[in-house]
Structure formats: structure tokens, C-alpha cells
């Protein structure tokens, strides 16, 4: 695939804002439209954009495949741990173990949803990036 300067510059200028927007979607998922899945996919699309412009090998230097794999599995293990914690505390599987506060606060008043959004965002971002980098690595430069 022939690369042009336009793709190169646009990807390098745009990717940080895509990462930022993805993290915003993840962390504000319980307040404004967004959430763990959507934000994670936006972060992964930033990784994919960099991989399209710079090649999957250069991106794998910043996001090593084994680290992404580790983030995916550790993210799932933490989600499972949060789910089982509700079981151990007698509230049921995946129950909201942190009681939601009634008062509206600026950051979050649903701590359980906030933490789960971050865990799901980590897992989905790492997983989708891992799938795409693996696919690019087979046929790409």
C-alpha cells in the first residue's frame, strides 16, 4: 500500500484527539451519551488509524500485541471479579455493590457503573485493537 503525506499527517494529528474523545466517552459514560463499549471502540479506531498510516509494525512498538492481550484478559478477569464480589457480599451476581448516592455530583454518582465502564473500555479497546492489528499484521507491511 502506497502511503501519502496527507494520510500520514492527518493520522498523526487526529489520533491523539481520537484517544482523548474515546477516554471521555468511557469516563463520562454514566452521565452523557457514551459508555465502555463505544469509548473502547473509539480508542481502538485511533490505534487502527495510526496502523493504517504508519504500518502495524510501528504501532505495535507503542501497543505491543502481548500487552494488548494482557489488557484484554486482565480486563475480563477484573470484570469477573467485580461480578463475583457482588455474589460474595450477598447482593447477587453483577449486583451494584457500591450504593448509588442520591445527590448529583459532578464526576459520578454511580460509582459501580463508572468503574465497570472503565473496565469494559479497557477490555474492548484492547480487544478490538488486538483483532485489527493481528489482521493487519498478516497482510500489511
Amino acid at each position, binding site marked *: 500500500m502506497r502511503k501519502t503525506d496527507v494520510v500520514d499527517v492527518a493520522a498523526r494529528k487526529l489520533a491523539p484527539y481520537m484517544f482523548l474523545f474515546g477516554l471521555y466517552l468511557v469516563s463520562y459514560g*454514566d452521565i452523557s451519551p457514551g459508555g465502555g463499549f463505544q469509548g473502547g471502540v473509539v480508542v481502538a479506531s485511533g490505534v487502527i488509524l495510526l496502523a493504517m498510516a504508519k504500518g502495524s509494525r510501528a504501532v505495535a512498538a507503542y501497543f505491543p500485541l502481548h500487552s494488548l492481550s494482557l489488557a484484554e484478559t486482565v480486563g475480563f478477569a477484573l470484570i469477573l471479579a467485580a461480578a463475583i464480589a457482588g455474589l460474595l457480599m450477598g447482593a447477587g451476581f453483577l449486583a451494584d455493590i457500591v450504593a*448509588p448516592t442520591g445527590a448529583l455530583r459532578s464526576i459520578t454518582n454511580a460509582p459501580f457503573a463508572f468503574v465497570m465502564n472503565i473496565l469494559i473500555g479497557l477490555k474492548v479497546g484492547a480487544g478490538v485493537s488486538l*483483532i485489527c492489528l493481528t489482521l493487519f499484521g498478516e497482510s500489511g507491511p
Partner: protein
Amino acid sequence: MRRVVEIIAVLVVSLILALALSGEHPRQTETKEAIVENGLADTGARNLVTSVYLGYRAFDTFGETIVLLVSVSGVIYFLSKGGKS
């Protein structure tokens, strides 16, 4: 012959769909009203979509994460060079 069978199949399916879509369908509003009234108090999430997918339906979200985990495992299994890369 085969074309006749296809036409008959299409007609039968469209008849079933037409029967299913015709008639009176009362609007389902009870669930919506319950979520709008109780979502913030039950889960604390101001975004009611989040109160559904991490509050009332957290189990479905858990299943989705398992689906993604399995798909990642499958892609790596089928595309990695025998695990020796």
C-alpha cells in the same frame, strides 16, 4: 420448477409478515415509564442507557464481553503463526 418453489416461499413468508404486521399493536410504555421514573434512583446513572446496560441488564453486558473475548481468542488462534511469532 425451482423458480416456482422460490416464488411460493416468498409469498408464504410475505403472507406471514403481513399477518404479523397488521392489526392493532398497543404501545409498550410500562417498561419505559418505569425506567424513566426509577432509573436514576436505582442505579445512580444520569444516562438512562447506562442505567439499563450496567444496572438492569448488566448480565447481558457481561455476555457481550465474553463474546468479544472469544472472538479475540479465535482471531489470534487462527491468524498467529502457530504461536511462535
